[in-house]
């Protein structure tokens, strides 16, 4: 009860502070002092504190199962384990918006601390733009999705959290993803501020690069966590389904990656200024669009909580206002910087980065159209369609070939004008890649020509970056690590999809099922009762063709509040392959439906994504060391 009130009033105080902050910073803007008024920093800190207090009090309500709070009532239950009571705080619409606010205020505070060497007016303007976003979200939370609504009479028991969300990976997925997703707001605000101050320069590039990196690292890891969760929880054995909800997280990632490369040109050569600003604006806009699509209930998924049209309309108007504001500022204030020489030659680092950006934009266009087109068609012709994985695969996979080749050659070029050095060793590496691929592919039943070319390109990147790691030990190691991670990612995804095998069958207890490579024996089932679910645990013995037997114990959980049945896959992970078994129950039937998959190199997909972000991390800390 008390926590409820504290949380609510902290939010209102936070909103008032936003208004106050705007007032103080506008007053401070025209003063001649070199540093910004110390009060601004304190106020910003205070605002952060209020949002934290509000967030903590929601957590407290969840821990205490305080069902006088509507959000807690809708999403919690007394029998839920403590860990999931806490993670339930952001596992719903209201709480997750509070997390948005928390990240927004946290980032602007950190920005103010970390940008002391930057021009004063630029810092104040960044703060102002960020406060506009913050005010928008405060209003959004308070008007349409207040997490502290009262319920009277107080119910005895809550409705419970969707069981598929009760999972360790999914408990930390939202906070991590949000740090990346919402983190892009600071890039948006500061790029607008930089445009108005005509400060899109090398110095700005160096300073904003850190923020781009931070968002990028968190976004990468956040997407990976969601993907890991989908892999073992949804029971399809895949890790990426080209589901619209996944796509909306991938789109900002693509623009952010493009921005990261573009910033490198900006900080060295002070060119591509307009492009950097456009990318910054686009990235945040895409994050907001994602929130709109997911929250408004237009896209259906596990992320769609109780739908309320008012919420969708609010975000849409807010989004529209932000786009108009940012484009207006861009066109009015932006001047092309002609001081530095903008010309560069075809064969140079700049061109290769531009090529990267072109590919990123192409991938973005594909994903964007695939995601938005069905919605669009539904609105204008009420025809229902869905765009499946083949669409994306067909349009993206072939373009990976030139992309990978450019990625192997690009970083070896020098700025402004360059020649390809060590041609011979490159050619040798290339020949080795092709031969290696050919020998691997020859023994497989796959489309020979296409995969040979594709995998050769991936191996080429793999070997060139690997060589770089050993030869030029510390020269631009972060970039090499990331690119190496990317080549490993592509290789493991490709081999994973070519070599995966799957068996689906209906089976009774005690039955054996023979398939061409082995045998599945359904030994027994056991029942077990937990606090918030009953589970059926099955034991299967799986014999592969070498006669080696493993035992897998997939589980079916029947949650009591709300009553939902989930399947927990049992996965045996080794460095070489994952063995994945999931079973389903068909009501009133003695058959169990099982799906057994062998997925080679699965764990390498996660490892390579970690390597990719490790590269980002190394770049982030490079100058401090």
């Amino acid at each position, binding site marked *: 009860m008390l926590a409820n009130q504290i949380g609510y009033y902290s939010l209102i105080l936070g909103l008032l502070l936003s208004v106050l902050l705007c007032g103080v910073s506008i007053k401070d803007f025209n003063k001649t002092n070199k540093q910004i008024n110390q009060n601004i920093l304190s106020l910003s800190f205070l605002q952060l504190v209020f949002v934290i207090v509000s967030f903590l009090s929601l957590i407290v309500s969840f821990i205490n199962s305080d069902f006088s709070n509507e959000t807690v009532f809708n999403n919690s239950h007394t029998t839920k384990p403590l860990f999931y009571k806490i993670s339930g705080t952001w596992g719903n619409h209201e709480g997750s918006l509070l997390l948005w606010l928390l990240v927004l205020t946290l980032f602007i505070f950190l920005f103010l601390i970390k940008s002391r060497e930057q021009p004063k007016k630029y810092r104040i303007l960044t703060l102002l733009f960020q406060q506009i976003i913050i005010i928008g979200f405060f209003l959004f939370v308070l008007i349409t999705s207040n997490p502290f609504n009262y319920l009277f009479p107080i119910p005895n028991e809550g409705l419970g959290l969707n069981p598929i969300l009760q999972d360790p990976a999914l408990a930390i997925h939202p906070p991590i993803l949000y740090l990346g997703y919402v983190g892009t707001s600071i890039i948006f605000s500061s790029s607008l501020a930089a445009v108005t101050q005509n400060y899109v320069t090398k110095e700005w590039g160096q300073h904003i690069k850190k923020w781009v990196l931070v968002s990028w690292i968190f976004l990468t890891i956040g997407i990976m966590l969601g993907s890991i969760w989908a892999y073992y929880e949804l029971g399809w054995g895949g890790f990426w389904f080209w589901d619209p909800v996944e796509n909306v997280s991938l789109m900002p990632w693509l623009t952010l990656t493009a921005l990261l490369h573009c910033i490198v040109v900006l900080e060295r050569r002070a060119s591509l200024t307009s492009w950097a600003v456009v990318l910054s604006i686009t990235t945040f806009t895409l994050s907001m669009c994602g929130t709109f699509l997911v929250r408004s209930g237009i896209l259906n998924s596990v992320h769609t909580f109780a739908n309320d049209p008012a919420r969708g309309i609010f975000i849409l108007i807010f989004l529209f206002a932000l786009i108009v504001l940012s484009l207006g500022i861009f066109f009015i204030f932006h001047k092309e910087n002609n001081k530095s020489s903008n*010309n560069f030659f075809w064969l140079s680092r700049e061109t290769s980065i531009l090529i990267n950006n072109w590919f990123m934009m192409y991938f973005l266009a594909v994903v964007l159209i695939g995601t938005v087109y069905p919605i669009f068609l539904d609105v204008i012709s009420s025809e229902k369609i869905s*765009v499946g994985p*083949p*669409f994306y695969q067909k349009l993206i996979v072939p373009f990976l070939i030139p992309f990978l080749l450019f990625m192997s050659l690009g970083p070896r070029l020098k700025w402004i004008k360059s020649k390809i050095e060590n041609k011979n060793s490159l050619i040798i590496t290339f020949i080795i890649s092709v031969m290696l691929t050919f020998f691997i592919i020859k023994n497989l039943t796959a489309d020979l020509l296409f995969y040979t070319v594709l995998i050769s390109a991936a191996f080429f990147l793999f070997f060139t970056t690997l060589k770089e790691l050993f030869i030029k030990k510390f020269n631009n190691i972060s970039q090499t690590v990331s690119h190496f991670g990317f080549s490993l990612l592509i290789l493991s995804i490709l081999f994973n999809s070519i070599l995966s095998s799957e068996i*689906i069958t209906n089976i009774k207890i005690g039955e054996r099922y023979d398939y061409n490579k082995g045998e599945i024996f359904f030994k027994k089932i056991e029942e077990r009762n937990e606090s918030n679910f009953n589970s059926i645990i099955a034991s299967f013995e799986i014999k592969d063709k070498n006669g080696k037997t493993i035992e897998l114990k997939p589980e079916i959980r029947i949650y009591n509040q709300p009553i939902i049945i989930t399947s927990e896959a049992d996965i045996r992970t080794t460095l070489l392959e994952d063995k994945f078994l999931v079973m389903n*129950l068909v009501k009133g*039937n003695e*058959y169990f439906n099982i799906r057994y998959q062998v997925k080679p190199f699965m764990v390498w997909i996660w490892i390579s994504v970690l390597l990719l972000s490790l590269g980002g991390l190394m770049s982030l800390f490079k100058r401090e060391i």
Partner: protein
Amino acid sequence: MYGKKVKLRFIFLALILASVILTVFLVLQSLKENVVYFQSPSEIKSLIELNKKKIRVGGMVKEQSIFIDSDKVNFVITDFKNEINIVYTGAVPNLFAEGKGVVAEGFLKDKNYFTATKILAKHDENYMPPEVKEALGDK
């Protein structure tokens, strides 16, 4: 006649234009091939020509219509006006049950028989795919 810079700009723009056109063309082309339409049993009944392409059918699983043996699942999807028989080999989602909403993806054999290649999973028992809701006419 023109400076080198202008020429370079021009080539650059032409390249961008060319790649944009290529992108649009490619995307539209594969959209045409890879889009899956959603139809209700009644819409299928009123088809004049059978489509060879992959479609989705949605509605309710009819009561007492699920039959399972060791390699396939048979059931009937209804929108309370018309029905269609579904034959499916593969894993069914947990919430697949009689009297619940369902979406099946696959190919039409004729107007009464549908071979499903995928049954779409739902995440909770109250959730109804919007297409199914519409197909059932807000029941």
